[in-house]
């Protein structure tokens, strides 16, 4: 397949994202036109009063944080996906490979089942207990996988892959066990959480996610040349002057942090981390200096689009966002694969 210019794709995505985000402001159960939204924004700035109209509440307390959360979670999931695929030298790797999603899901289920009805009331810094449980579970699982794969001579990515699968299976079993003991209401909460949902967005969540995304997007570019070298193999990267063990540890910690927080705040939004980097690589090639930022933008766009659709397809109800990301992304991915097959 012929490549498109990296700069061109980056520019196109960077222009597309704010346009789509702005358009997404108008979409939802209550339809608000761009002109109305603009008017409301101007009114809010001019009056500066505490008493906000209904339109303002919908726009700035419900939709804007939700859209920003979608942007941030999408960017984090897709960029960590690109980094993990490079680190594991496997174009079909996924951020969940290092055990973070499985662990997070056990943590969340455990909180839902143990805390029972107290889940929604137990808040911590604006976050539910479920989110805290998911984050702790995800980080603990990653730590375990990393420990299992690290010996005196360094971390083996092959062992890490296998350990990730093993921990994933264990997490699946624990999850089933918890579901078995859960009552109907808990069961519904667990399965809804696993589908991924952005509807509970708040400004507190946006600021936490924003901080994490900022850390990742500042740190990742420094290691993009190291990731390029790692595609040759670990000893080749070492011969090119890369401190492989350090780069590996740094990228795994950053990924666990990014995915852990995303999963804690938005549940399990699948597909973005696997397919977005893959599609971007098909378009511009595997150079991580462009692959990581372009994936971040494309992931953000996919999640904003999916979330906008989730708000309107089954009016007046809402679909979980995770269902939409897969429904939107999978056919696009299949089309790309078919096109690639024709050209080979």
């Amino acid at each position: 397949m012929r490549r498109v210019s990296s700069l061109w794709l980056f520019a196109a995505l960077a222009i597309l994202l704010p346009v789509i985000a702005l358009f997404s402001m108008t979409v939802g159960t209550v339809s608000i036109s761009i002109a109305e939204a603009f008017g409301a924004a101007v009114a809010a700035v001019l009056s500066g009063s505490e008493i906000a109209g209904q339109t303002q509440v919908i726009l700035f307390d419900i939709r804007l944080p939700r859209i920003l959360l979608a942007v941030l979670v999408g960017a984090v999931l897709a960029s960590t996906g690109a980094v993990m695929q490079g680190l594991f030298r496997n174009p079909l790797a996924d951020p969940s490979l290092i055990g973070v999603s499985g662990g997070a899901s056990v943590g969340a289920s455990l909180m839902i089942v143990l805390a029972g009805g107290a889940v929604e009331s137990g808040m911590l810094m604006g976050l539910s207990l479920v989110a805290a449980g998911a984050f702790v579970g995800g980080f603990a699982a990653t730590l375990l996988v990393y420990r299992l794969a690290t010996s005196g001579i360094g971390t083996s990515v092959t062992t890490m892959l296998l350990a990730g699968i093993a921990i994933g299976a264990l997490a699946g079993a624990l999850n089933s066990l918890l579901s078995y003991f859960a009552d109907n209401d808990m069961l519904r909460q667990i399965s809804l959480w696993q589908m991924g949902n952005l509807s509970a967005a708040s400004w507190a969540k946006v600021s936490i996610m924003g901080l994490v995304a900022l850390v990742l997007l500042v740190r990742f570019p420094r290691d993009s040349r190291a990731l390029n070298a790692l595609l040759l193999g670990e000893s080749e990267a070492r011969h090119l002057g890369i401190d492989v063990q350090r780069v590996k540890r740094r990228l795994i910690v950053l990924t666990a942090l990014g995915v852990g927080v995303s999963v804690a705040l938005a549940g399990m939004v699948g597909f973005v981390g696997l397919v977005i980097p893959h599609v971007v690589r098909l378009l511009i090639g595997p150079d991580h200096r462009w692959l990581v930022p372009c994936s971040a933008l494309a992931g953000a766009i996919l999640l904003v689009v999916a979330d906008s659709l989730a708000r309107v397809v089954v009016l007046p109800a809402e679909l979980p966002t995770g269902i939409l990301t897969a429904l939107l992304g999978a056919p696009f991915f299949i089309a790309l694969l078919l096109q690639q097959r024709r050209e080979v």
Partner: protein
Amino acid sequence: MTLRAENISLHLSGFDLLRNVSMQVEPGMVTAIVGPNGAGKSSLLRVLTGELAATKGDVTLNRHDLNHWPVEQKAQMLAVLPQHSLLNFPFTANEVVGLGRIPHQTGTLKDAEIVAQALTLVDAEYLQKRYYTQMSGGEKQRVQLARVLAQIWLPCETGDQFLVLDEPTAAFDLAHQQLTLDIVRQLAARGVGVVMVLHDLNLAARCADNLVVFDGGLVAAQGAPEQVLTEQLIDQVFGVKAMIARHPLTNKPLVIT
């Protein structure tokens, strides 16, 4: 200054892979390592490049312990071409060769110029924009060769440079085997120390200043090819009856089996 192995022994999972091996690679000289399969040639290369730590003995690069060099400075002086490459991502040849410039801060323009020259040198300029994953075995190996050449393209201020090649000619046709050896001689003329594992004794005899014959983890003989290659040694090491003649033009030893 040299790349030197002193009294190296390597013991891995119950096997003695190397026993008291000493050898050195001099700048401006070509050293060829030959020997039967499993003799420990690749193990020696892995110890020489720091991939494996020797159980006993020292490896020094330009008078300092190999592992005491900061990784980036080491990469400016020592380039390594492995026998096989794991790369299965669709980089173009230009991008693969460009990876060889990672240890250097010479700027994008200079790097692009070096990449183009390195690809031309290995007869692969037509591959520039082709995808690595769609190349033939010989083309891939030529691109990888260009990558390690790009890594030591310019002399380094820190110290003498060395190039380690593990069976560089294995995937090549006759013309490209010749080309590789010509490139190796050019590098040596520029002051680079080259050490390579070869299987073809005649190629080794033609190209090397120093021939190291390996057998069972031990150095069976080393020195100038004219002195080392004897009918008795070939029988003893490879178990093959051979005749040693002289090449009519170069007067180098010619092994006839």
